[in-house]
């Protein structure tokens, strides 16, 4: 009898520990709300989707879609409705949903289209990416968890990627300030009536950028170039409103020397 009790206790213990990531310590202790990004948000979105509250893409960005889903969850489970994932909300979420972190991260890293609804086999919820990865290396603006960058709503992931390519192709040897300034020049052109009104139109305007002409725009940009683009999109402009820049050692155009100069950063002179 004692042996049976021991085996039973042992099995109970094993079964408690075997429940996959279904406890309050799954999340970090950080309280998260709108604007947050990263692993905790991925888990939050996945758990909310598991329970049917979150219907959008799991992308690790705590935007309005996550916010309303969380509020609806809080309302349904009798929690204070504030759209903030604090300790109590996380505990309630963890207690009522499963989270297969490995599977979710694998889909994100592979750039697969997927959902994570509870009660439906996971293999039926994924559409494999055959184009070389959307969240992986080729996306150009994701970290190693497959989450993308967060930029002001008027810009897109594609914009980050394109400008990062231009910054890396044009100024990868320049100080960080100079890289932000090159990104800012592209954004200043977007505001100017004298240039095309799309980022792609500006970058690929014939004769506009050396990196387009010599093909260096197609090099894979590094994290530093992407960070520079994010800073410029958030308002930083070390060029002080410049619309042009040139390298005085290599510039062949006489016209560019006629532009009013503003400042020099590294090898580039910025002008209006």
């Amino acid at each position, binding site marked *: 009898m004692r042996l049976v009790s021991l085996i039973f206790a042992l099995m109970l213990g094993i079964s408690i520990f075997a429940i996959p990531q279904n406890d309050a310590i799954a999340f970090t202790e950080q309280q998260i709300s709108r604007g947050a990004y990263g692993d905790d948000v991925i888990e939050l979105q996945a758990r909310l989707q598991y329970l049917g509250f979150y219907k959008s893409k799991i992308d690790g960005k705590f935007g309005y879609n996550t916010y309303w889903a969380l509020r609806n969850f809080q309302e349904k489970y009798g929690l204070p409705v504030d759209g903030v994932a604090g300790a109590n909300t996380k505990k309630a979420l963890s207690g009522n949903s499963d989270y297969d972190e490995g599977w979710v991260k694998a889909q994100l890293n592979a750039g697969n289209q997927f959902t994570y609804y509870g009660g439906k086999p996971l293999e039926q919820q994924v559409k494999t990416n055959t184009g070389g990865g959307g969240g992986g290396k080729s996306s150009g603006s994701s970290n190693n968890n497959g989450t993308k960058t967060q930029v*002001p709503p008027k810009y897109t992931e594609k914009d980050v990627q394109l400008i990062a390519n231009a910054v890396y192709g044009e100024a990868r040897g320049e100080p960080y300030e100079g890289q932000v300034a090159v990104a800012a020049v592209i954004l200043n052109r977007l505001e100017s009536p004298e240039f095309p009104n799309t980022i792609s139109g500006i970058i690929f305007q014939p004769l506009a950028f050396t990196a387009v002409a010599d093909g260096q725009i197609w090099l894979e940009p590094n994290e530093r170039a992407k960070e520079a683009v994010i800073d410029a999109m958030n308002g930083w402009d070390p060029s002080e409103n410049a619309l042009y820049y040139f390298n005085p050692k290599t510039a062949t155009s006489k016209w560019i020397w006629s532009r009013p*100069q503003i400042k020099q950063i590294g090898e580039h002179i910025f002008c209006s």
Partner: protein
Amino acid sequence: MRTMLVILTVAVIGLGAYSIHMHKENTSLQRTVLAQYTNNLTDASEKLSGLQQAVSQSLLFQDDQAMNNELDSVWRLSSEVRSSLSNIPVGQEVSNQWLSYLGRLGDEAKRTEKTGDYQAWQEKMPQVSTNLQSLSDEWTAATVDFYKNNGNMDVWVQQVDNKKPNTTFDNVQKTLKDYSEKDFPLTLSESDWQKKIELKALQDSVITEKEALEKVKNLFPIIKDATFTVTKSSDTAPYPFYHIQFHQGIRLGYVDLTEKGGHLLSYLVERPVDEARLSQDEIKKKAEEYLKQLGMNDVAFVESRENHQAWHLTFARVHPGDNALIYADGVQLKLAKDTGELLGANAMEYIQEETIKPQTPRPIDWKTFFDNDVKVEEVRKIYTDNGQFEQRLCYEVIAVRDKNTQETFRVVIDAENHNVLKVEYLT
């Protein structure tokens, strides 16, 4: 010796065949590119003619609907010509002038359609129509050589190469500049805006390089022991400023301060960032402390965004009269996720300080303003640009459409005349 000769002959023949192959490939590629450029050029020239006709036709009607149709055509065609012109390699100055002229024409058509001020349009456009016709003729004369190129790019390249004088293009450029100034002179609001971004309102006394450096050390004590390099902005810069670059251990960065009054333009540091240790709330509190340190006590939080190394937070000046947020007077901070250190501050807009004209808000009944399946979740008062360089008091509404899909929109509505200024889809 004979073997060597055979090897050499084979190598020469091989090399010759390879170079012929490469030459053919290059020629074919050049022809494809040239065909695309020629297509865009023809397209732009034809549409330019269509645009001139549309402007002319818009002078025929008094009927609102007929007039609006023509204004739509002017707006659409001006956008299309802009797009074609921006895809052909011509000199930067010519391209700039063209895009600007056409953009202004399109904007004017859009504005007229919105405001219904047809009289102003009809007074101005007869001259614009004549000018467009003459521009179109000059453009045709300037680009005629582009069609005489025997399928290679040489003629085109010679035309756009600004080392060779080109009188026909110089004429187009000059005419465009003249017509731009005459047909679409800067409005009062545009001119005010230009003065604002050139910091013309700053009346403080000039500070010295030494004072600028002291100011930097006071504002950002973490870099007070850094090695600094101070340079002045170029003489032709729209506003003079000190460009202060620094290096301290793992930190590399810069500060720009205006010469007049030593106002902070921007600050940015690059340093390695470790794993996040602070919560979103702690980051926000730290940001508020930094704002006090920078002497910005009249701002309120707008939004924050986390990325893998840092948080970007936006604040805006609060209007002392009605507590509305003045978005144009924004300040942005960048904080490291590991320690919350201030990695950047951008006060370019904040120091420009908008002059706000008094406006009287009229309440809106959201139930009749929006469709039945739209729920208004948040409303706050803000001041923002109406697209014509005027700061307007607005209601900023966060609205959710459809209970099931919960699509979220940010809608900005002029509080006085209830015009919708912006609609943004939020995810």
